[in-house]
C-alpha cells in the first residue's frame, strides 16, 4: 500500500508542485488549503505524513501541528513545515509545537523528496 502524504498550503501553485513531485515518486497525496481543511480531511483517513505551510488563513501551520500532536490517531505522524529563510522564529515555534522537520522555500523536487525520505523512510 502506497504511503499517503497530505500537503497543506493556501498557495495552489506550491500545493500542485508538491503534489506533482510526490505522486511522481509513487506516493498518494491528499491536498488541503489550510489548517482547518487539513483537520477535516485528516479525520480518520490513512495519512502517513503531513507537509504544511505556516502562514495560512483559518488555522495556520503552528495551530495545525498542535492539533495533530494532540490527536490520539495522528500524534506520531511526521510533520514537515515549509518555511522561508526569514521565518526563523516561526520555525522555532513550529519545532516546539512538534514539527518533525522543515524545508526552506524555495526548494526543488529533489530536496523535497530528500526530506520526505528522511522522516518517512
Amino acid at each position, binding site marked *: 500500500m502506497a504511503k499517503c502524504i497530505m500537503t497543506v498550503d493556501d498557495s495552489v501553485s506550491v500545493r500542485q508542485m508538491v503534489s506533482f513531485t510526490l505522486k511522481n515518486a509513487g506516493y498518494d497525496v491528499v491536498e488541503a488549503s489550510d489548517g482547518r481543511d487539513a483537520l477535516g480531511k485528516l479525520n480518520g483517513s490513512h495519512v502517513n505524513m503531513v507537509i504544511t505551510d505556516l502562514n495560512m488563513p483559518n488555522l495556520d501551520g503552528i495551530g495545525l501541528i498542535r492539533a495533530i500532536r494532540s490527536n490520539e*490517531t495522528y500524534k506520531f505522524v511526521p510533520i514537515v513545515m515549509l518555511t522561508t529563510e526569514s521565518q526563523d522564529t516561526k520555525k522555532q515555534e513550529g519545532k516546539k509545537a512538534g514539527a518533525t522537520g522543515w524545508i526552506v522555500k524555495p526548494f526543488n523536487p529533489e530536496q523535497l523528496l530528500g526530506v520526505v525520505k528522511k522522516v518517512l523512510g
Partner: protein
Amino acid sequence: MNMMNYSVQEGTETADVTFRGELTIRSAGEIREILRNALDGRRTVKVHLEDIDILDLPCIQIFCAAQKTAFATNKQLILDAALPETVTRVLEQAGFYCLKTCGHSGNNACPMTRRTDG
C-alpha cells in the same frame, strides 16, 4: 486504522503469540499488554513474527523489555520462526544484531534476531 493484528494460543505452560501486519508505535502499548498477559503464569512464550510487515523502534524496545523481564523471572521468550527479510534488514541496520552478547539474556540469544537455523 490499526494495521496490526494478533492471535494467542494459550496453554497452561506455554503460550503462542502470533503478530501480523504493521508493528508500529501505535500498537506498542497493545503489544506490551499482550506479552504481559502471555507471560503471566507461564514459563514459556513463543512469539511468531513471520507475517509482520513493519517492526519499528518502539516495538523493538517492547520485545527487548519482554526478554529482560522473562530472563529476570526465569521464564523464556522464544522467537519461533525466522523474521521476514525486510524486518531483519531493518534490525541489522539499526544495530540490533549482536546475538551472542545480548546483556538482557545472559548467554541466550536476543529473541529479536534469533533465527531458526542458528
